[in-house]
């Protein structure tokens, strides 16, 4: 053990340089994205598509013009919102894997004000958003209550509840919410004035994108610059310490899951009000699970999640362009979103094996 009290000026210099250097965890994360992007490109080549043209199409599809960037941001939005919810829960010690279900309930919730009150004009916009967030939060509350009262592990509960929510939405659009005389598995359309306004004409860019970015900033403030955020991190990092401080873990579990579920609900509401305009069976292609991956890849930090969600958004819009122009299978998007997290987990596991854990989860 070196004597820490003796410090040479050189040490001070080295430390300040270290502060400037890119931290190991960030380098590994970037590496994971680079490797998975290369694998994706290789795969496109392997499938017999012209690689140069594919690459050009992909970049143009994701960032080529205003409408492409809009698509990327629109794909980013729900993934980011779910990720914010997931990371708040996980930082607070609740392994909320139920983003998909909370998203489904947010989507259902967003339809409730319109179905209950009719077309109220623009007033519906805030009502639908809030209602979606509340429905997501209530769906997220269930695992919290089960954990506190019955000690049920939230991992299994939230995973199972995802599928209950998916089938419940399917039931709604096949029955109670299906308009008379329609055979499609979807509800009636929201009135035009209740849709999220388009930010740039001629693109799909809706106001929900701004909502998600603001939510990311608020999440960062909440976690790092509020007393509640400190307690939340304490509850997640060391439940025993948290209890010994005289705090109530149960109350924290409930708050954390309400916020987390609320974000998931928001994601569903935004997807309905900005993209689908109605409730549709299968509108979420696993967005909840992708959001979880975003949260982990972003190092459970709000801004990390923002960048990763942007990458996921770009992958999705690039794949869309590749499918439209070169008929590359759209499943490329799922591969490209599943790969980085596997690579990252392996890298972290190997580092932990060498005695250099860079990333510790709450369990």
């Amino acid at each position: 053990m070196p004597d820490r009290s003796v410090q040479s000026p050189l040490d001070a210099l080295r430390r300040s340089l270290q502060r400037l250097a890119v931290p190991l965890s960030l380098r590994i994360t970037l590496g994971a994205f680079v490797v998975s992007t290369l694998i994706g490109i290789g795969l496109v080549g392997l499938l017999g598509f012209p690689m140069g043209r594919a690459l050009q199409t992909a970049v143009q599809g994701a960032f080529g013009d205003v409408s492409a960037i809009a698509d990327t941001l629109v794909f980013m939005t729900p993934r980011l919102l779910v990720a914010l919810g997931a990371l708040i829960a996980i930082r607070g010690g609740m392994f909320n894997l139920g983003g998909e279900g909370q998203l489904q309930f947010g989507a259902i919730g967003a339809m409730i004000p319109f179905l209950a009150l009719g077309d109220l004009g623009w007033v519906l916009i805030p009502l639908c958003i809030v209602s979606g967030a509340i429905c997501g939060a209530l769906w997220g509350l269930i695992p919290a209550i089960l954990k506190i009262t019955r000690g049920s592990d939230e991992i299994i509960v939230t995973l199972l509840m995802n599928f209950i929510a998916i089938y419940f939405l399917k039931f709604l659009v096949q029955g109670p919410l299906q308009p008379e005389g329609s055979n499609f598995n979807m509800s009636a359309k929201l009135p035009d004035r209740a849709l999220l306004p388009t930010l740039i004409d001629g693109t799909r860019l809706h106001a929900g994108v701004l909502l998600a970015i603001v939510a990311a900033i608020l999440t960062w403030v909440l976690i790092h610059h509020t007393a509640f955020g400190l307690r939340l991190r304490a509850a997640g990092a060391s439940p025993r310490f948290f209890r010994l401080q005289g705090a109530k873990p149960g109350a924290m579990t409930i708050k954390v899951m309400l916020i987390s579920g609320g974000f998931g609900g928001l994601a569903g509401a935004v997807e309905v009000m900005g993209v689908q305009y109605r409730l549709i069976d299968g509108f979420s292609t696993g967005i909840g699970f992708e959001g979880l991956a975003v949260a982990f890849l972003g190092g459970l930090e709000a801004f990390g999640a923002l960048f990763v969600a942007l990458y996921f958004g770009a992958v999705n819009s690039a794949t869309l362009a590749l499918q439209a122009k070169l008929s590359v299978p759209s499943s490329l998007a799922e591969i490209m979103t599943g790969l980085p997290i596997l690579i990252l987990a392996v890298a972290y596991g190997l580092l932990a094996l060498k005695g250099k854990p860079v990333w510790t989860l709450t369990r």
Partner: protein
Amino acid sequence: MDIDAITIALFLASGVRLCVPVLLAALGELVSERAGVFNIGLEGLMLFGAVFASIGFATTGSPVLGLGTGMLGGAIAAAVLSLVIVMARANQIVVGIGFNLLALGVTSLLRQVFLVDAQTGSVRSVSTLRLPGLSDLPIVGRAFFSQSPVFYAALVIAVLLWVLFKYTRLGLILRAVGENASAADVSGIPVLPLRTGAVIFTGLMAGLGGAYLCIIASGGVFVDHITAGRGYLAIAIVIFARWRPIRAVVVAFVLGCLEALQFQGQYLGLDIAPPLLLATPFVVALLAWVLIGKASAAPKDLGTPFMRS
């Protein structure tokens, strides 16, 4: 309304048919979990089994070989997964989520590359095997003894696993690895190879489960996300069955019967919308999971990567 014997027999038979894929996956997962690996990637392993089964069947025209390639596909995917979660000690939950996302994409891609205009043939040779004598019994004959050979195999495997964990040295060693990997390591037990083996066994079983879904339940046709959450359901079954193979059979059968209500419910006088019936296995698994509360029977080192300290 009267419910006659044939309706009941058909209902039970359909429950059995629907329980087989989840049962196979659950039996596989049980071995992993007993050895300390919490494998959320089960859903993905089933998907790989299903797509490889479909490719095998389309290429060879033989449903038996289809089941075989499905098992092989599941095992290969599991071998890759075990490199990640056993050898590289990655976080098992994080990897599981990522692996399932990846599996959705890769299996869909494989379908688009290999199964575009795939021909399917008869699957009769693997769909029904009437056990002589027993299949003529009233009700139970039709329900339990005129099933796919895969179902009988699943039962045999369940019994073998029960024997393995109760009476054999290998079973004891596997349990030791799951209960306290460090202690097992100190006493000279090869922890990592055993865990790898357990995960690959899970892959074989989940692969067969996926292959059953594809070959026997849908005539050899693979559709994207054919598993529809059954892998997660199987995980719930394992925990609800308290890591016991015979209980897993019973639990899986009950959930299969619930799922069967969507086909036979109306003959039994039930008028419930199909999506709600599809949700019932998940609801019941959830309720059961909540009612049993804390799972004290869980292997102590479940979900913890092994680090020699």
